């Protein structure tokens, strides 16, 4: 089984801060970070009733399908996707090669402004993900997982989930 993807509290707080700033700077409605496997990482914005679980899964599917198309025509990938709606628009870009940044904006912003602010935020988030990778590598070197919730899990704990 592949090693789990981990999000630590300190780096989560930094990412949340970065996307909060991005949302304000880009005048966006909603900013969302999704793992390429479809897991939601962090979100900020005014669309409080948005189904972020579905958004995460569909976004990851969208990016995966687009990556597939890119490889078919000999491209490495399409790192930026943009969808224009009647009222709202979506800007999708890849951060640190494995995370998807989604920005939803309306007429209060513009594609140009969003792209500019995303570029700046991406640089910041890349270094946060580098820090996460370094932390995971350190754990592996030490030979244990930091406070893994699974380390002491018992069969009874698991059975209780299904009772």
């Amino acid at each position: 089984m592949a090693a789990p993807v981990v999000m630590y509290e300190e780096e989560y707080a930094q990412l949340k801060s970065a996307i909060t700033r991005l949302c304000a700077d880009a005048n966006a409605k909603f900013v969302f970070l999704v793992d390429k496997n479809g897991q939601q990482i962090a979100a900020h914005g005014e669309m409080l009733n948005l189904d972020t679980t579905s958004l995460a899964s569909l976004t990851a599917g969208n990016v995966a399908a687009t990556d597939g198309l890119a490889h078919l025509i000999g491209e490495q990938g399409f790192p930026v996707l943009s969808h224009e709606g009647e009222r709202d628009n979506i800007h999708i870009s890849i951060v640190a090669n494995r995370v998807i940044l989604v920005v939803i904006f309306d007429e209060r912003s513009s594609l140009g402004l969003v792209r500019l602010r995303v570029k700046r935020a991406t640089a910041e988030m890349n270094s946060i993900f580098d820090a996460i990778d370094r932390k995971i590598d350190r754990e592996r070197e030490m030979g244990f997982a930091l406070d893994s919730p699974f380390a002491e899990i018992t069969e009874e704990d698991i059975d209780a989930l299904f009772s």
Partner: protein
Amino acid sequence: MTFINYASREINCKIVYYGPGLGGKTTNLQFIYDSTAQQAKGKLISLATETDRTLFFDFLPLDLGTVRGFKTRFHLYTVPGQVFYDASRKLILKGVDGVVFVADSQRERMDANVESLFNLELNLRQHGYELGKLPYVLQLNKRDLPNVVSVEELRAELIRKDEPVFEAVASRGNGVFDTLKAVAKQVLMELRKTSGG
């Protein structure tokens, strides 16, 4: 690939339902969705054709409860079973933590089962997985139909590694939750193993 979020205290795992076209993968998810309490499930997303054949994937997020203070969520996906959707199946398998193979017990679908299982192993290998090392359950669906192959014959043809095997009639819900529990349990036990527990 399991996602552990220490900040929100959540664990997310991915389970993929695989198998030949019209075998019952989507039916499994639909039954799970219909039978699960509102607070324990998200929306069932189905990206399908006009004739309700899965086009890209079905997706159902399930909340299983809390383990050691961590909310445990399973994301269930189905792949499109029709042969020509192989490119999509490869994408959906990425990051998988556990697999359910839904076999169609009908005699005339035996070749399709075998082909789909071979396809699963091939696609997993391309992502760097080995079926032998992955949490895996075999479901023998449509046991209620008159033209079914015997369980012994299906096991002989389809068993790969002494995985749990469940007979099912997914349209009625028989065997659906047993299958899900078995694969989810395997995923969690495997996570315990890899954390040094």
